């Protein structure tokens, strides 16, 4: 007797699900908006715009000229930051938004936060492409240090995945986690060197770098705009935190998963 559905591995099925759910989210987002694909670059563009405005403001206050490199650095940090923020928001909501599926069909539930991060990563990809084109025109970038970019981005994605899994489970049990995440994320931009260089913190720069996103963003800006490799110590620290986040997120998620359908 032929079983129509081929006996594929769990991993293949898992990936099919993640890809399909991410595709669904992307498709819906672009379907609902008249702007279509432009939507992917609008949010990062706004964040970059805000960053540039801050730069001009600071420059005017300090009586300095704003140079292209500073603006480019702000842009290079803003786009991944926008991805980080959107991923966390979206992932936090992912289980609640799919409560029908959580309670009705058995799926490995971690596909929801993972797909949420993946769909945001697609936006990030589009925005990055636009940014690359702009940077190429302004003559910034292109150095050997670019080899560090994938590692730094990977760290950021790992951080999003770990936090996303943990927060999605937390939001399922406590509905106000969502609002807490919103508030924290909104203020986090002030404590993360996105719109300004980390040196602005002076003596306390290392305190600012304890935020694991900071070394990644600073490293990215340095690699893309400054053409220098990221600081090994801080990068290792950020990657370590990201890995720990991932492991912790997965463990917490697995621990709590049996109760999802009952408590949602």
């Amino acid at each position, binding site marked *: *007797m032929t079983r129509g*559905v081929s*006996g594929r591995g769990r991993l*293949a099925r898992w990936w*099919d699900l993640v890809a399909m759910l991410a595709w669904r989210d992307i498709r819906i987002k672009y*379907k609902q908006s008249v702007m279509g694909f432009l939507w992917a670059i609008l949010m990062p563009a706004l964040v970059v715009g805000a960053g540039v405005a801050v730069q001009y403001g600071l420059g005017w206050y300090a009586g300095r000229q704003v140079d292209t490199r500073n603006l480019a650095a702000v842009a290079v940090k803003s786009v991944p930051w926008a991805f980080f923020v959107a991923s966390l928001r979206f992932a936090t909501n992912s289980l609640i938004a799919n409560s029908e599926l959580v309670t*009705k069909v*058995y799926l490995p539930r971690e596909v929801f936060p993972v797909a949420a991060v993946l769909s945001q990563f697609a936006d990030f990809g589009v925005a990055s492409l636009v940014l690359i084109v702009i940077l190429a025109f302004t003559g910034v970038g292109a150095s050997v240090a670019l080899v560090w970019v994938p590692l730094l981005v990977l760290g950021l994605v790992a951080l999003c995945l770990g936090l996303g899994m943990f927060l999605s489970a937390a939001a399922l049990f406590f509905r*106000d986690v969502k609002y807490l995440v919103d508030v924290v994320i909104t203020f986090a931009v002030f404590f993360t060197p996105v719109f300004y260089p980390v040196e602005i913190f002076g003596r306390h720069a290392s305190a600012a770098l304890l935020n694991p996103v900071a070394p990644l963003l600073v490293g990215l800006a340095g690699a893309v705009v400054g053409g220098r490799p990221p600081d090994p110590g801080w990068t290792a620290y950020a990657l370590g935190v990201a890995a720990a986040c991932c492991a912790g997120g997965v463990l917490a998620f697995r621990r709590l998963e049996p109760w999802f*359908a009952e408590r949602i």
Partner: protein
Amino acid sequence: MDDTTVAVEHVSKKFRRGELHDSLRDLVPALVRRAVRRTGRPELAAREFWALDDVSFTVGRGEALGVVGGNGAGKSTLLKLLGRILRPTRGAVRIHGRLSALIEVSAGFHPDLTGRENVYLYGTILGMSRQDIRRRFDAIVGFSGLEEFMDTPVKRYSSGMFARLGFSVAAHVDPDVLLVDEVLSVGDLVFQRRCMERMREVIRQGTTVLFVSHNLRAVNDLCSRALLLDHGRVTAAGAPAEVTQAYLLASLAGRRDVDGRDAHIARITVRGADGPRTLFQAGERAWVDVELAARTACERLSVSLVVQDGNAQQVFDTSTERLGQRPIDLQAGGIFRCSVQLDLHLAPGTFHLGAILKRYDIEREYDRWAPAASIVIESDRDVRGVANLYPRVVAFEPGPASPGSGRP
């Protein structure tokens, strides 16, 4: 070779109802309160109840097991445990092979996506790969009968179309074990029939099916075995006809208080030529046995027999008096048996039978027991209503009606 595909071993599931903190805003003050007032009034004890209590059964390959029971009997909990959506508090559920659940077909759909996109989305959720879906796409769409609507967002679908497409996807997953929860009630009659055929086909192909339904006819029709759940316990198991009968009797025969009556109806049974049963073919002959018992001497009694449709509307009645029988006189402590033969020219569906015990001349009612038993009628003619007139199309062509075939 061990043919058991589903094994449920002493499974119990406890649910907690009561104070649940579902926001930090509630939880934090509650924790603080608990910490501050150690000796204070304890938190309201969470009310616990067993949704399933020590349930065990096995299902073999290619077998179809029907699960019946009233609301809150634990049927859905059982399916969710089998589907790994919930985890049992005690006991174990073992499933060999790929499992797919057909539980509320709309769960996987997104209203903004088109029919085509939703087929892929829902198919993936149910465990098909992209190639599987592509290969079966035409079969799925053909089954649903929604070919023209594949590029329409499903939010524009009627609820029937929505459910049809959902069932069509789920019916083509081809798992080893299929859980079905009350989905055959969707769509029109034609689609329901197609669903039944598809289910039969799936069972024939060797898929194990667990079928939860309030549609006893479908359970009788599809399943080789059935299980009756009542308040989380298995109260009957065996042939579907017996189990559905037990279910109907349990649900119908509420507490009957016969203590104060001078005479009462002690028993009502429906049987076919081969003995008591619930499933009859339209036009088949059935016998209703009514047993009367008297506490004091009663005179001039007659028995009325009533038939109600599935919605408890009375659609037929007769009485021994009108059938020309002599009045019944009962001694104190006397017992009387009356058996009525019926030809069941009824439309397919569920019907309830009952009896009324009356005095022949002054219409005094001694006892009324209706509904007392239920029967399920099957017919090869798809007719609706109550009566079965066995329609047959004898002319079906262009042209005027021939003389004598239409109205004068």
